[in-house]
């Protein structure tokens, strides 16, 4: 596994080659039509002017020359081509890239390219160094929390705003602790920006949480029931995990869009965040894969490492899905058990009431109380089952869908080596993260099981003398 730790090479700015775009354009548009996404609104218009300059950090001037042809191709567009711009080149250059970008619909619509002035590369370099240093220990001093979901507005236009709090000592941020309010579509917008920039060059961009029309509608409509609170909590936790995963990635952490997301009080409204569902992603992955296969440029299929990795991830995906299904079944049964225990508790209480032997009657009431407490326990355990175990697994299944795609990335000969290096490094990083993640979460989960058992012991120990007291 080629997990080199050196920073991605700041290669020479390669002149873009526009001729190849002709074919790519066709491919691109055909994919566009099948994906039926509507073009996004002109983002650049809403970007405040200052931000453009602040965000246009880059290690070197990006050789981004917008051409009329390309503007047609890439509709409306702004996207800073900052950071690691040589790796960004492919988006502008080689033919295959349009086929690649359809992986996420937003890249399809707006792999936004923007000509910009490069300024303050120095600051950027420093922060990059900082991160690179810490990357070796894989610990970045940055903590993200997502909290305080708050409903804003009424009716169908209502939305939930979440507080995103960042605590960090990294110098690339202006403060060491700050928080902003973000809504779900902002997160999706962030993801689509990151994906459009990094996915096709071989980085594993953590997927954003799923959209849910049903869940959100309930919240909008103001249903204050337990299922909508559950939904909001589930979403909050997922958003938190999403951000935590994203900032763990050394390259993504340097991304100005990410910084803007975390820091700025006002964020341009992200539109066109539809269809980022798991199913949607899978469909896109498959389409991209098909498109790639159609291409005449078949790169290094015999590359043993890629083949092996692909197989590995296939297997892993299968296994994780199976495990996920079993855990979901457990969550379901545990909830059922909780409900049935509660029902039994009530019934036992009734039975205790009608029992005319005093001591037995009392013991039965006690039994009912114990069972009620146990029901609570089951509920909490189901909660843990879900949030710790099941969600972890579904996150990873989606992540692996992205990774599987990575392995399929075929690029123009020129860039293949580069991307391949990146991919290898990414995969290495991913596997390391995965191991850590799984271990941590599973251990936490087991600890929750320990707690449950300890509680059970307490309850039954309290009940035993009551039962013995039946005379």
């Amino acid at each position, binding site marked *: 596994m080629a997990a080199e730790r050196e920073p991605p090479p700041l290669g020479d700015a390669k002149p873009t080659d526009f001729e190849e775009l002709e074919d790519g354009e066709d491919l691109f548009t055909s994919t566009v039509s099948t994906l039926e996404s509507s073009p996004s609104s002109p983002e650049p218009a809403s970007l405040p002017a200052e931000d453009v300059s602040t965000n246009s950090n880059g290690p070197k001037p990006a050789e981004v020359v917008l051409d009329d042809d390309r503007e047609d191709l890439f509709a409306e567009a702004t996207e800073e081509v900052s950071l690691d711009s040589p790796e960004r080149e492919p988006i502008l250059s080689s033919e295959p890239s349009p086929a690649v970008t359809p992986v996420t619909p937003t890249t399809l619509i707006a792999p936004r390219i923007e000509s910009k002035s490069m300024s303050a590369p120095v600051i950027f370099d420093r922060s990059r160094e900082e991160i690179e240093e810490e990357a070796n220990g894989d610990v970045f001093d940055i903590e993200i929390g997502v909290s305080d979901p708050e409903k804003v507005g009424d009716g169908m236009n209502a939305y939930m705003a979440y507080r995103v709090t960042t605590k960090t000592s990294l110098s690339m941020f202006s403060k060491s602790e700050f928080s902003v309010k973000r809504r779900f579509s902002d997160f999706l917008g962030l993801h689509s920006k990151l994906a459009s920039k990094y996915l096709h060059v071989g980085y594993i961009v953590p997927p954003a949480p799923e959209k849910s029309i049903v869940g959100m509608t309930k919240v909008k409509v103001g249903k204050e029931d337990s299922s909508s609170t559950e939904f909001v909590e589930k979403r909050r936790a997922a958003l938190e995990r999403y951000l935590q995963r994203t900032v763990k990635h050394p390259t993504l952490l340097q991304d100005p869009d990410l910084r803007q997301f975390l820091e700025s009080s006002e964020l341009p409204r992200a539109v066109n965040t539809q269809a980022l569902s798991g199913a949607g992603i899978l469909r896109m992955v498959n389409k991209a894969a098909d498109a790639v296969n159609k291409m005449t440029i078949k790169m290094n299929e015999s590359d043993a490492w890629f083949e092996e990795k692909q197989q590995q991830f296939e297997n892993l995906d299968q296994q994780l899905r199976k495990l996920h299904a079993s855990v979901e079944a457990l969550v379901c049964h545990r909830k059922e058990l909780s409900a049935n225990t509660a029902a*039994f508790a009530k019934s036992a209480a009734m039975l205790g009431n009608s029992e*005319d032997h005093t001591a037995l009657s009392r013991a039965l009431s006690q039994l009912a109380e114990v069972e009620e407490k146990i029901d609570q326990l089951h509920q909490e355990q189901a909660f843990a089952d879900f949030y710790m175990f099941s969600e972890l697994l579904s996150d990873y299944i989606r992540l692996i869908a992205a990774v599987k795609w990575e392995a399929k990335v075929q690029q123009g000969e020129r860039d293949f080596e580069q991307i391949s290096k990146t991919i290898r490094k990414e995969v290495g990083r991913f596997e390391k993260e995965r191991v850590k993640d799984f271990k941590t979460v599973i251990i936490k989960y087991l600890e929750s099981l320990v707690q449950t*058992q300890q509680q059970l012991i307490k309850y039954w120990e309290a009940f035993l003398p009551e039962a013995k007291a*039946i005379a």
Partner: protein
Amino acid sequence: VRACAGPRLGAAMMEGLDDGPDFLSEEDRGLKAINVDLQSDAALQVDISDALSERDKVKFTVHTKSSLPNFKQNEFSVVRQHEEFIWLHDSFVENEDYAGYIIPPAPPRPDFDASREKLQKLGEGEGSMTKEEFTKMKQELEAEYLAIFKKTVAMHEVFLCRVAAHPILRKDLNFHVFLEYNQDLSVRGKNKKEKLEDFFKNMVKSADGVIVSGVKDVDDFFEHERTFLLEYHNRVKDASAKSDRMTRSHKSAADDYNRIGSSLYALGTQDSTDICKFFLKVSELFDKTRKIEARVSADEDLKLSDLLKYYLRESQAAKDLLYRRSRSLVDYENANKALDKARAKNKDVLQAETSQQLCCQKFEKISESAKQELIDFKTRRVAAFRKNLVELAELELKHAKGNLQLLQNCLAVLNGDT
């Protein structure tokens, strides 16, 4: 499947169960223990020493030890099937002399359908799972089958023991025939006509029951008992059903642990990173913890669900007793009225007098024995609940502690590794 339900639990049978959940844990004696104060005295001891499950039927070996002169030998065995137990039970119910007793409830029909179906489904799905998974599930289902089998044996046994312990019923001739006659009793399953007759009889009975229960009782004791039993029976029915559902969800959750364990195992063996050892350890944990959870579910089933089910049937039998007493009261009152009429008309007075006398005697006899029966019922019930609730709590504690230990050990290893 052969099984010994008595104290001697054959070693051969336990063999295959080592890796599977031990459903009856310490309760070798099954439901017999429910009726605590059954004095098994030397005069008459009955148990089911062996049982054999064939396609559609279960053959119970009923074993008797007795010093009573009624029997030809001191110790003997016969083979009986479920229908013959029912025949015996029904003969008690139909016997007017026993109207004043709580007739021990008949054992439920052995029902392996669900279990058999599951085993069959497993066989069909063999291709779709790993060998390891298949073996695990097969063992589990076999253990389940065995547990159901043991339970049905226990329930048939407790019926016989109740009869043997009852001072009057133990002397019943049909009972002795049942115990001793070593040929088939030829009580083939009721044919259609008889079933229909039964149906009508029950209909009349319940219609009667409505009328009769409207009659308020002069006797405070019986009035109280009637109110109590009606309510109690309904609530026990509800509690029994809910307890059943609860234990079944518990079992489903335990089964999920099984699948999770298998998936983790698969992840642990296919992975090349060092997380593989981790997965394998956790998989092992899930396997072990699942066994404990399955036992918890089985113990709850035995100590709680079965207890409630049994008292559901017994409280029904007690209700039936009250019904019979009410019936005889109505007869008595009718005989009184008839006597008054006869005296008024001065016609058939002697006949009416005799009839009235008989009804009176019958009613008083029933009332007297019913009172004692109902008091005994309460004593039995309280003792049984006490025993089972204590044992339930003790088992829950045992399992929770075992589980806790397992989890803590595993965590220690996992944390030590990382």
